C-alpha cells in the first residue's frame, strides 16, 4: 500500500509540483544577429510576472508552444498578431504596445558593430 502511494506521488504529484514552480526570467536571443543590427539587446521575458496575471492555458499551447526554442518568434510575427502581439496581449489596450522597445529589449541604443 505504501509503495503504491509513493509511486502515485512520483507519477502525479512531482511533475505537477515542478510545473507549478515559478519559471523565472527567460532570455530570448535566438535572433541576436538581427537584434544587433537593429541596435537592441536580447529580450528578458519575465515569466513569473505573467504567471501572476494569467493562467498557464491562457498562453500555452495556443500562443506559445511549451518547449523552449520551438517558438520561432520574431518582431515581425509579433507585429502580425502572433506570440507577444496576440490580439488580447501586446497588440491591445490590455498591455503596453509593441512600439515601446525598451520595455522588453535590453541594451537599447547600444551600437554593436
Amino acid at each position, binding site marked *: 500500500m505504501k509503495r503504491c502511494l509513493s509511486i502515485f506521488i512520483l507519477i502525479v504529484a512531482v511533475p505537477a509540483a515542478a510545473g507549478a514552480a515559478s519559471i523565472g526570467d527567460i532570455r530570448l536571443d535566438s535572433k541576436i544577429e*538581427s537584434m544587433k543590427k*537593429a*541596435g537592441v539587446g536580447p529580450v528578458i521575458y519575465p515569466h513569473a510576472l505573467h504567471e501572476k496575471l494569467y493562467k498557464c492555458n491562457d498562453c500555452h499551447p495556443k500562443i506559445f508552444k511549451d518547449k523552449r526554442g520551438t517558438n520561432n518568434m520574431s518582431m*515581425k510575427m509579433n507585429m502580425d498578431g502572433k506570440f507577444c502581439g496576440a490580439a488580447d496581449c501586446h497588440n491591445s489596450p490590455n498591455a503596453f*504596445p509593441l512600439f515601446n522597445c*525598451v520595455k522588453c529589449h535590453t541594451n*537599447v541604443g547600444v551600437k554593436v558593430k
Partner: protein
Amino acid sequence: MKASSFKRLKAALLCSLVAVFGYAVTGTVESAPAPKKSGDQSAAAAPAPKKETAASATRIDPKDPSSVIYLDTQGRPAGIGDPSKPASQAFKAGMGWHPQALSAAGLPKDKYGLVDWAKLVRQNIISPKASLDPEEEEIPPLKMDVVITAKGDYVSDVIYPHEMHTYWLKCDVCHPSIFVPAKGSNDMTMVGIVQGQWCGRCHGKVAFPLTDCNKCHSAPKKASK
C-alpha cells in the same frame, strides 16, 4: 440740463437695444449687459462684432450633422467663419475641442476609433485653405514614396508616402529641421521615434499613433524566412 438728460436716455435706450439684439443672436448673457453701464463710447463699438456672429449663426444648420463640428462645447458657434480673422480667435474666446461634435460629425475612423485624416483628404470631406494669406498658392502634393529600410532582418520595411504628407504640409515643415532631405542621411531609430524624434514629432501627438506597426512597416523583407 433737460437736453443732456434726454441725450443720456437716448444713449441708454440704444445700448439696451443693442444688448437685446446681441442676446437674441448669441444666447449669452455675460457679454451683453456690458454696454448698458458704460457710456456712449462703447455703444458705437459694440454692434460691429455682433453682426458677424449673426451671419455665422445663420450659416450653421443645426439639423445637418456635419455642422456640429462648428459648435463649441456649449453648443454655440465656435469661431466666426471669417477667413480674414486669425484662426485662434475662437480659442482665445475660451472655445475648445468638442469631442462629441467630432464624433457626431460622421468623420471616418480607423480601426482604433481615431479620426482617419488620410481618408478625409482622399474623399474630399474637408478641404482646408492652403494658407491664411489669400495670395499664397497651394503647392500640389509630391508623389514620391521613400523606402526606409528597417534595421533588423525580420521587421518589414517602411514605405513613406510623401503624397499624403504634402496635402496639408509644406516642405519646410519637416525639411531640413526634422529630416535631412537626402536619402540615408537620417539615422532614424524606433526608440527615437517613440521618444518624439523624426516621425514621432507628429505621430502619437497630432497624427495617428505608433500602435499599429504594420501601418508603416508595410513592405515585407524578401529575405525574411
